[in-house]
């Protein structure tokens, strides 16, 4: 493997990991509060499309980003209404939203752009961190990412601090482990869970927007390709801790990047194996290395006072 290939590999691994990192970090908060947000993929797809559309219309990727986040938040709000207030089965609701998002974005894309449109949309350019980006190999890979990537990493820190140092974070943890006790202690369980879902919606929105507006500068049907599910798996793999989840997301990102590295290195590995690699890793993760004793005890369980 040449130096160049290595740099490209690291860079693309990070790039591919970022949407997963964003979605995963948000999902972490939601799951810590007890809500399994299976519609993550749908949120990302919705946001990717909305961001692409808005960016194309206004020629401003920033506007695109904001619209994408708002679209994802809207979906998250409905998800919260169903999962928390109406106490619907969280898994079913998630699947439903994913189907809806796929259908809606595909339909709207075809209607607005036409099935053959390959227009690129205005996207975020790369940000060169001065001086650091001159380091050989690692420099270009690590320090020439789009601004959104650095934001993603910052958000990991923010989430960690939120959970550890604020009373909201404490409420989230309490609500996820023992909502009955939290309720009796005076915590508003419903509000906390809503905020958890909305938080994951906002970050999923950033993640989806990243894919269309910061990464590929286009939108394709179903472009998330299961990234949302990888994010959820990363949270479980990471034992519901922010740093380990980050590690798992990076792992999956790099596994996806192998798809490009392996042919470049002229290794005769079937494409299919590379395609399934992230998911195989994820399967090993949930099968073997889960710290189940750290799972939020009330995960996926709806809360009803007096119940």
């Amino acid at each position, binding site marked *: 493997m040449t130096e160049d290939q290595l740099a490209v590999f690291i860079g693309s691994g990070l790039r591919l990991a970022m949407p997963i990192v964003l979605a995963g970090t948000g999902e972490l908060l939601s799951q810590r509060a007890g809500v399994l947000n299976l519609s993550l993929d749908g949120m990302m797809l919705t946001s990717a499309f909305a961001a692409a559309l808005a960016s194309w219309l206004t020629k401003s990727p920033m506007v695109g980003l904001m619209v994408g986040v708002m679209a994802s938040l809207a979906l998250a709000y409905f998800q919260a209404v169903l999962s928390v207030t109406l106490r619907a089965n969280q898994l079913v609701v998630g699947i439903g939203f994913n189907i809806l998002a796929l259908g809606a974005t595909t339909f709207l894309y075809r209607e607005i752009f036409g099935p053959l449109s390959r227009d690129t949309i205005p996207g975020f350019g790369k940000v060169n961190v001065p001086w650091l980006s001159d380091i050989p190999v690692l420099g270009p890979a690590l320090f020439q990412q789009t601004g959104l990537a650095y934001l993603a990493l910052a958000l990991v820190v923010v989430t960690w601090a939120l959970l550890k140092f604020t*009373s909201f974070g404490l409420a989230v*943890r309490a609500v996820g482990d023992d909502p009955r006790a*939290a309720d009796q202690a*005076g915590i508003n369980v419903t509000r906390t869970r809503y905020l958890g879902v909305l938080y994951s919606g906002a970050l999923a929105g950033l993640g989806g927007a990243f894919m269309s507006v910061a990464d590929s500068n286009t939108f394709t049907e179903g472009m998330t390709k299961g990234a949302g599910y990888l994010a959820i798996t990363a949270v479980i793999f990471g034992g519901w801790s922010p740093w380990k989840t980050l590690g798992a997301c990076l792992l999956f990102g790099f596994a996806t990047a192998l798809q490009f590295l392996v042919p470049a290195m002229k290794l005769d590995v079937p494409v299919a194996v590379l395609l399934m690699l992230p998911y195989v890793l994820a399967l090993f993760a949930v099968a073997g290395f889960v710290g189940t004793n750290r799972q939020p005890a009330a995960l996926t369980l709806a809360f009803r006072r007096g119940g």
Partner: protein
Amino acid sequence: MALLELAGVAKRFGAVLALDDINLDVARGEVHCLLGENGAGKSTLCNLIFGVHRPDGGRISFDGKPFSPSGPIDALRQGIAMVHQHFSLVGTMTVVENLMMGRARRVLEPREVIARMQRLADEYQLEIDPWRIVRELSVGERQRVEIIKCLLGDPQLLVLDEPTAVLPPEEVESFLTVCRRVADSGRGVILVTHKLAEIATVADRTSVLRHGRVVETVAMEGADMRRLVCSMIGHDIHTGDGVLAATLGLADAPAADADAIAQAAAHSRRGRDGGPPALLLKGVTYRDANGVTRLDDVSLTVHSHEIVGIAGVEGNGQSELGAILAGLADASSGQITVDGTDLTGAAPKDITACGVGIVPEDRHAVACVTALSIAENLCLGATERYSRFGLLDRGAMSKATAALMREFDVRASGPDAPMSSLSGGNQQKAVLARELSLSPLKFLLAAQPTRGLDVSAVEAVYSRIQAARDRGLGVLLISSELNELIAVSDRVAVMYRGRIVGEMAATAANREAIGAMMSGHSHA
């Protein structure tokens, strides 16, 4: 002026009238006890005061103003705090984190909370380490955290729901002293209990609740205990009604001891003559998933024709012992033999086949599937008996279940009624019916069998167990109700921190010694 006043308060759940025309008042500086048996409505009343339920009728006023909180948060804010039977603490978090829960600050300030906690600890003598994780605390310690949590909010009224149920006898007194001090500091205290002895110690006034109504309110000075009992259960108790007296925490008559000792001796003679012991535990040790030793070299023998009681505050290994005997957990080492058959590490089905009946401590989680019908629950372990070519014969199931229900006085609309529709007492009777009708039946484990049951159900359960004992069954009875245990068992073994720290005859004279061992002061 009264601190809290209830006038004509009523509460309905569906068709059931849980509280009916409640008239009650509590003054500042007063410890007001709520006396009543299980099911009388005490918890409902407390929850109503605390804002968990809304009253369906009547008026509540607090500190002179009308009081109708929108929920517990609102009640807390207005100055009413409640220490629940099942604590409102999150087990995975530390004490400090639990104390900070629900407080308005944005950024957590643990140091400030610890400082305030220290002041309270000094004032009321409630020592606790702020950095320990709650699920590792003993039940008594958790209760202390609950109380501190309530006091942090500087409440005017403190409601305590059956607080001494989880304390070893030694700690009850110091706890009641805390209650007294809290009241003396100018607050009102409502203490809910069904133990008369405690009321005598600490109450200023007592209100007796029965079937959702306040039967009477008496000042404790010069009050007649027997009359209170009458009001509570609706009829007088007879002398020698040892179990009932025990349930109510009345002092037992010493004359009954001689009888009890003679009976126990007779039972044990029959037992030892009759073949292999019903249960033989040798060196049983159990380490849980976190590596903590929950059972430490436990050795115990239960002969046929005898009831051995295990005394001990909850959390000293009883649950784990029950799980191992039921086949739901495997001992790390040691041997378990039932009627001469080695059942170490056996699966639940094999354990049942060897004649082991289990009445688990958690009815809803372990003993039955509440959404299924009574018939389905009673036949679940023996579907082969009721199926042909794999298809269920529901008619046979219903018939067999109906017969059992008649025999064990289980009240329900029929064998196909869902288990969840039964009262706690009837559910327990149904479970008992299933276990006691096992054939063969050599050994019965009854873990906390009367928890949450009203007096008549308690009587029914114990009389069945004793009758089975007389027919030759060996019984291991686990209970944290010491008086009941002594009244029903022949012998008592005490469990503390996973070890058997002592064994003695089940007499009232030994009560103090047993109580001391329950708190860790062993004699040997």
